[in-house]
């Protein structure tokens, strides 16, 4: 079957503001799937609630647009049920770092084989611009005329502290690099976290494309960066926190942590998927486990 990019789109038009980074993120996701030869019927996307998730109607794959903050948890269940599917959780910074931060932490810890795309526009956009943890301290936001009072959280350090098997940063203004990173994330066996700096001209006016261009450095320009070293990644994170620079590329990747499923004793040597196994079972042999 030949795959083309239009197959991944429905007849619906996106409803985002002009200049919104969500356009490029979803196009990059579609392109990555296409280039990896993953057909619309072979992918499952778990959409969150937010401007980002409003793109769900325009994407033609198996998908579930569930609840605010829960895209990762729902994706996990889908992944466990059928590992033949490429599973992507598509989520905003508000949902991922606020309402559902526990899911991010546990997904990284458990190392489910799926890809998490974080649309980081540094605000709760759909609810019209409240501060998130990635909003800079002091910035005036919805209901905060004096500016956001609390400290920023260093998300890079937070994620790295969990020893992720794949952590990348990308930018919606560089869809080519983003597509490549999403491809690498999908190909990676384990939990791939991709934090995407996303333009939001409506509620994050300061961070214009020009601002991003001034702050972003592609990792590939560093001559000797070893992304398999967690220490190097942590040094990089420290530098980002001190300078305000954003490195894009795969910050850290390693493959010697098994995935959640591969560690399951009960599923050892079983070729079928849980979805193939729904049938009546004789439970006589299991009576010994009673009480």
């Amino acid at each position, binding site marked *: 079957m030949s795959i083309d990019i239009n197959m991944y789109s429905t007849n619906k038009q996106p409803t985002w503001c002009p200049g919104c980074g969500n356009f490029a993120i979803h196009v990059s996701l579609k392109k990555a799937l296409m280039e990896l030869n993953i*057909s*619309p019927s072979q992918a499952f996307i778990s959409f969150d609630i937010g401007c980002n998730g409003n793109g769900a109607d325009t994407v033609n794959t198996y998908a579930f*647009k569930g609840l605010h903050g829960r895209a990762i948890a*729902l994706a*996990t269940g889908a992944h466990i049920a059928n590992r033949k599917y490429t599973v992507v959780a598509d989520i905003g910074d508000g949902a991922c770092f606020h309402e559902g931060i526990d899911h991010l932490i546990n997904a990284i810890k458990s190392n489910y084989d799926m890809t998490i795309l974080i649309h980081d526009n540094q605000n709760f956009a759909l609810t019209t611009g409240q501060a998130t943890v990635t909003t800079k301290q002091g910035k005036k936001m919805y209901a905060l005329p004096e500016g956001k009072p609390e400290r920023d959280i260093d998300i890079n350090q937070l994620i790295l502290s969990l020893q992720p098997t794949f952590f990348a940063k990308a930018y919606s203004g560089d869809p080519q690099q983003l597509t490549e990173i999403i491809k690498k994330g999908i190909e990676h066996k384990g939990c791939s976290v991709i934090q995407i700096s996303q333009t939001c001209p409506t509620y994050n006016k300061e961070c214009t494309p020009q601002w991003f261009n001034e702050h972003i450095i592609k990792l590939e320009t560093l001559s000797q960066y070893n992304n398999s070293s967690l220490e190097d990644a942590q040094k990089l994170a420290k530098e980002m926190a001190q300078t305000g620079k954003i490195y894009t590329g795969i910050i850290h990747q390693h493959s010697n942590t098994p995935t959640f499923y591969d560690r399951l*004793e009960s599923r050892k040597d079983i070729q079928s998927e*849980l979805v193939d196994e729904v049938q*009546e079972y004789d439970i006589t042999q299991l009576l010994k*486990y*009673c009480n």
Partner: protein
Amino acid sequence: MYLNRIIVKFGGQSGQGINSVGTILTKSLNRAGYYTFSNREYPSLIKGGFANYQIDISNSSINSSSKKTNILCCMSKNSLNQYITDVLPNGVVIYDAQTLELEPQEQEYVKENNIKILNIDSKEVAKQNNAPAIMANAVLAGLVWKILKQKIEILTDEVEEMFKDKNIDMEAEKACLLAGYNTPLYVENLSQSIDTEKLKRTSEKKITMTGNDGVSLGALAGGMRAFFGYPMTPATSIFKFLGESANESKIVVKQAENEITAIQMAIGAMYMGTRAMTATSGGGFDLMSETISCSGISETPLVIVLAQRIGAGTGVPTWTGSGDITAAVKTAHGDFPRCVIQISDAKSAFTLTQKAFNIADKYQLPVIILTEKQIAEGLFSIDSLPPIEKIERGLQQGENRYQITESGISPRWIPSQDEKPYLHTSDEHNEDGHSTENAQEVYEMSKKRDKKMNLLKDEIAEPEYFGSPKAKTVLVGSGNTKNPILDIITNNLSSEDIAYLHYEYIYPTKTEKLTKLAQEGKRIILVENNQTGQLGKLITEESGYQFNEKLLKYDGRPFFIEDILNYLEGKSI
């Protein structure tokens, strides 16, 4: 014989091994061919507090506990003081110490009722048999076995089987059982009133299982392949059963980071087309409510076990009740269809859990299975499990996932690389699954979902009527209320002819049978293990029928047989 049963009660503190001695005796009695119902009461702490384990023994199937006891075996002074006046005339009190001091009124009670007292220092006996103090319980088990006049081989065989894969010194364990059984302290007249001969047993061995075992087995029989859990009494032992048997059942068992995750994982797995489940108690269930609403609007099948304990908030965590019926039926925002089923014992747990999956799949909605502490952790004895239900999924190909149909059920197919992909969404949507704010579309899709309730209501059974059609008094209840009432009916324990109407399907709520009985002029009594008569309120809401008479109990204890009998005789319970 008192209530056609013999009752043995162990009392002591949490951490004294009461549970293990109770289970050993229960299983041995079932091995011997007796029916039993065993119930464990324990505090929500690890060491200390009150704990007891009661075994009711009979020659016919029983599923409830009585308040009184024939043999009381106490491992602590507290429990002796607590339960001694529950000992039946001519009964036996075993006190696990060298000496016994009774309060004056207790002495009086003992004398008046001809209660026999036996002191045994089981730890000392264990020591004499070169066994660790922890095996002192086996001495007590042996002694009680002797008083029950049972063959020692049955007890030792059962213990051997129970512990065969455990790291336990079987020789020492057996020595303790024998030492208790053959203790010189035993005298024939201890067994005088404990007339096991009258309880003619069948020769067949019974299967011993809890309600939670029944739920677990039902889920596995019905093709559940993933379980997502988070510990909360009294749901936790479902997690235990499924986890411990996973290497054999080959399912995935995952302890999620919290209840929200557990149910989200379940809904994700159900979307993909497997069968998955989660189980929790009230607090965890509240956390799950948003996802239940999401399941309703997105028409994603979902099965949740809500194992009830008594009280709001943290309540009384290890005690029983059925105060979450309203929560199961009404929780979560928006109008959406759902089904609520309530189990009452191990057998119904097995069957109804399978039915829950069929309903969830066919009607594409959340199904909540209600159980309660008394059923979840109570040990039932059964001859065999009911036959396995045929799996029904109602899968069907179609053009649009949310197609508006006459029945309200839209085509749903399992995601497959050969099929057309579709979007499930918690946004209101049109037929192809895209969000909509169009008034007509919002109205029509909501209406379509609601239609499923009519169909479901047609499919589910009316409440079941037990007892003679001529009975003038009909008790109405659900869940564990069935057990003491049916034990009364089948053993003819009530002087009055009574019948019982039992609700398994709580929602949608069928009321025809009940209103007909009321019209016939029967005396109708609502019996519920909660404060406000929650099932009754649903019935009233559905039919307009008002219950004039209600027997409600909400102190964390189940209905004992005596509660029901006393009520019927006009005494306070």
